[in-house]
């Protein structure tokens, strides 16, 4: 049997039982690899459950710095009999299986093409630790110790991390360190260490990642920091996985960074609302009154917020909403990742509405785009929805460090204060003075005689006086469309990459790939795989809706464009078809909607399959240049 080999390039997956303390041990494993300066991307694949159901933790190690899922598992660590049979079946031929050998492995679980490493984790812990809870928890640390020997993790780093994690709790540090040692020693004495897959400091093909002093953080924390730096003062929310940690992190940072030095009082307000309807209502009220306010939610919450999103669109009230997307309805797969709120968000609400969407792909973008969302919402006087997802929001990603320009000034948009109102001869709340569809706003309490108006949905004229005239309605919604056009020049532009040079192209077709958010990392990897196979593919990563004109151009310039996304209906593809003047047949959906993040291998396979059947049907656009 040929064993899988590779330096800094493999996938390890942990199969655990929810609530057994595996999360912190698995995190320890991933963080140690990160501290060794090796690109790593951990992913928690967890059930909607507190205790007892199977949970997995997948760690991708990639010398080239690929942070998306690759697909397949090279080494499986299993301490969960419930899922063991399937977990073993998921291992690639030539892969490795680490398990708790306190009980012997049943014979049908032995495959010829897998190397087995039995470690009596339970037995070791029962022998070495008296406390029943520790006996349970430290099993996980024992296997991390064993992996340190098998994969050559820097043992000093592991111990440093324990010291960081349990600062001030000496007993915990010593018991964890002992468990690490036990696993490490057992593996060294029992197995032929290290394996053919292993870690090596400096053994990367992506030195740029390490030069920029990367950080390891999740998107929800980054977005929360964006809200802090963007000057948000009101956060109203209702708990919903996977968005909850956005406001949790905001609260933690605000308690540290937003306390008035003189009085100890708070320069922020956080309200856990009774539901999502109230959460966004509070945001609308606070924004209407001139504070920067935001909420965070997920799919079902987005649905509940739709009515207010419609009002805010028509009444032109800024709203910042962070949608951490998940799979399906409340009894769907709330702890699984998808990009399936695209259409619900883009056209959120009744009447003719179009909402501004931002699509972060990294924690760094979660931070930057959240700051930007507050500027955009106030500049455009409309809701701005940040379309994150569980994979980005709740998993740790290696990211360039967050950066801040101290010269940044908040863009509060067109707001007339008392002084400006005194200088203004004729003011009407919905007069399009500048021709960009954005009108001048006033805040309650600003001026004794000028600028007061009644905010309402759409039954109004340019002077904000009640009107049910059809002409006034049409004039208003046409101006809102003009404003949406203006938004195009304010939102982040798409990122494009030319194709990787291919020596002997297998096709004359001009190929493009279009993606956004967490589909980007595995898409870039898939594009590199396909380039090696002779398929050159241009890429465009959408970062905002409304779409920039370069998107139309990109589609126009290609014979086929693969639209890579994580939902069943190809929602981004549909949005592009709806909004751009392009022939729909050019856009080939590449989809994944299983709830686990899309893999590079799946993307490459789908594109490969399509090309093998499509090439003959499609006449190249520009055959002479192909």
């Amino acid at each position, binding site marked *: 049997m040929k064993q899988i080999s590779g330096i800094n390039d493999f996938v390890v997956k942990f199969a655990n039982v929810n609530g057994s303390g595996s999360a912190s041990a698995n995190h320890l494993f991933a963080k140690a690899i990160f501290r060794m300066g090796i690109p790593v991307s951990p992913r928690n694949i967890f059930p909607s459950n507190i205790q007892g159901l199977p949970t997995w933790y997948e760690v991708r190690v990639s010398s080239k710095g690929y942070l998306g899922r690759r697909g397949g598992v090279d080494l499986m660590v299993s301490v969960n009999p419930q899922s063991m049979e399937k977990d073993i079946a998921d291992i690639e031929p030539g892969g490795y299986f680490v398990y708790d050998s306190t009980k012997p492995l049943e014979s049908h679980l032995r495959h010829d093409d897998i190397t087995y490493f039995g470690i009596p984790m339970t037995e070791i812990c029962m022998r070495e630790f008296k406390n029943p809870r520790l006996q349970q928890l430290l099993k996980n640390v024992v296997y991390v110790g064993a992996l340190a020997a098998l994969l050559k993790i820097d043992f000093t780093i592991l111990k440093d991390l324990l010291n960081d994690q349990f600062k001030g709790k000496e007993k915990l540090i010593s018991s964890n360190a002992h468990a690490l040692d036990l696993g490490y020693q057992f593996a060294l004495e029992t197995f032929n260490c290290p394996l053919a897959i292993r870690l090596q400091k400096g053994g990367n093909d992506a030195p740029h990642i390490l030069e920029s002093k990367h950080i390891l953080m999740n998107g929800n924390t980054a977005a929360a920091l964006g809200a802090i730096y963007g000057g948000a003062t009101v956060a109203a929310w209702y708990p919903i996985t996977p968005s909850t940690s956005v406001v949790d992190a905001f609260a933690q940072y605000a308690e540290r960074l937003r306390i008035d030095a003189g009085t100890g009082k708070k320069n922020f307000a956080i309200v856990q609302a009774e539901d999502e309807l109230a959460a966004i209502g509070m945001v609308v*009220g606070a924004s209407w009154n001139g504070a920067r306010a935001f909420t965070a939610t997920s799919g079902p919450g987005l649905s509940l917020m739709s009515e207010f999103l419609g009002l805010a669109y028509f009444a032109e009230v800024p709203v910042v909403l962070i949608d951490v997307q998940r799979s399906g309805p409340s009894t769907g797969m709330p702890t699984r990742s998808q990009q399936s709120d695209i259409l619900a968000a883009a056209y959120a609400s009744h009447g003719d509405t179009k909402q501004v969407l931002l699509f972060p792909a990294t924690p760094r973008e979660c931070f930057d785009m959240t700051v930007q969302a507050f500027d955009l919402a106030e500049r455009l006087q409309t809701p701005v929805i940040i379309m994150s997802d569980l994979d980005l929001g709740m998993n740790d990603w290696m990211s360039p460090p967050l*950066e801040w320009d101290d010269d940044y000034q908040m863009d509060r948009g067109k707001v007339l204060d008392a002084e400006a109102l005194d200088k203004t001869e004729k003011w009407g709340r919905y007069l399009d003075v500048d021709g960009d569809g954005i009108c001048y706003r006033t805040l309650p*309490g600003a001026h004794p005689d000028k600028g*007061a108006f009644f*905010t309402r949905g759409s039954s109004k004229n340019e002077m904000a006086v009640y009107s049910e005239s059809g002409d006034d309605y049409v004039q208003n919604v046409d101006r809102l469309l003009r404003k949406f056009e203006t938004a195009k020049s304010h939102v982040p532009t798409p990122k494009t990459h030319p194709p990787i040079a291919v020596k002997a192209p297998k096709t004359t077709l001009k190929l493009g790939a279009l993606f956004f958010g967490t589909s980007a990392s595995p898409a870039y990897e898939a594009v590199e795989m396909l380039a090696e196979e002779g398929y050159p593919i241009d890429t465009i990563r959408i970062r905002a809706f409304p779409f920039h004109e370069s998107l139309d151009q990109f589609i126009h310039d290609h014979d086929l464009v693969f639209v890579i996304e994580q939902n069943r209906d190809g929602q981004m593809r549909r949005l592009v078809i709806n909004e751009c003047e392009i022939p729909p047949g050019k856009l080939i959906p590449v989809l994944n909607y299983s709830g686990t993040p899309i893999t590079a291998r799946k993307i490459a396979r789908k594109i490969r399959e399509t090309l093998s059947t499509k090439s003959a049907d499609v006449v190249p656009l520009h055959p002479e240049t192909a």
Partner: protein
Amino acid sequence: MSYIKPKFRHPSLPKNALGVTIADYDGAISTLCAGCGHDSISAAIRSACFLSSIPPHRIAKLSGIGCSSKMPTYFLGKSHGFNSVHGRMPSVATGASLANRELTYIGISGDGDTASIGMGQFIHLIRRNVNMTYIVANNGCYGLTKGQDSATADLGSISKNGGTNPFDGIDLASLALLQGASFVARSFSGDKEQLEPLIRAAMAHNGFAFIDVVSPCVTFNNQAGSTKSYAHTREHLDAMPLDYVPLRDEIRTQYEPGTIQSVTLHDGSVIHLHKAGADYRTDDRNAAIAAARAAHDEGRILTGLLFLDPNSQDLNQNLKLASKPLNALGKDELCPGSKVLSSINEGLR
């Protein structure tokens, strides 16, 4: 269509402490039906704000959806207003109050807006003790959709089409008392003598002040057999009159000794209650609940100030917000800067 009232006012109109006349508290001309109780409430709000000398632009008016929620157009034209979403005004008011604690907030809602679609938000608004005056113009029916019974329609009340309401009505004042509202009153749109001082006291109160105002619908619910008609309300009223005396003003009316209970509000203004029966006190929540219930059982409508907690702490205080309004904070107070971010980065390596 609303249209603008003529601006001319007689020069001898009385002025308040701000030196302005009641005309400065006008809104647009009402488009509600002639004789609608809601217009009387608008008038009471207008004169309450004038008498209390609150600068109109320092008041924000918020409403939900329905006939009631159109009302803010018809008073205080110099105030910002927000006609929001059906049943969701409480959340908008909560957010607004958090953003700027210095304004006076008046919420206008109806029985459909509060007791049905907005029940959840109403209860939570009470629970959070948002500093605002919340008035329900309560007519027991849906006006804009043409007269369906609302959740506050009384058991046995006969609707315009002759149907008898088979359900017990929701008593919003009792509900507010039970949920711990710090100021609860009930009144009648036809009783300006009582409603006006109640509104003034509510605006002076630090916290959530609820006034349930029976406000007959002349078009759909003023017929014989309706328990929220003008005639029925007048006949069944148990009114507890009161005076509101702002800080430093003197009591102008004299009452017989022993018939007055005085309550001092947090801002130093005083409420004098009289003719209420010697045994009624506004500081006993359980007694208020019992009194409201007893009146209900007898088919009477108990109006007046039912309960007041003068020591109430509002949402902003309970959240320990700094005194400067959140919407007035600038970049220096909000943004921690690049050095702090560098240290945060360091902690993530």
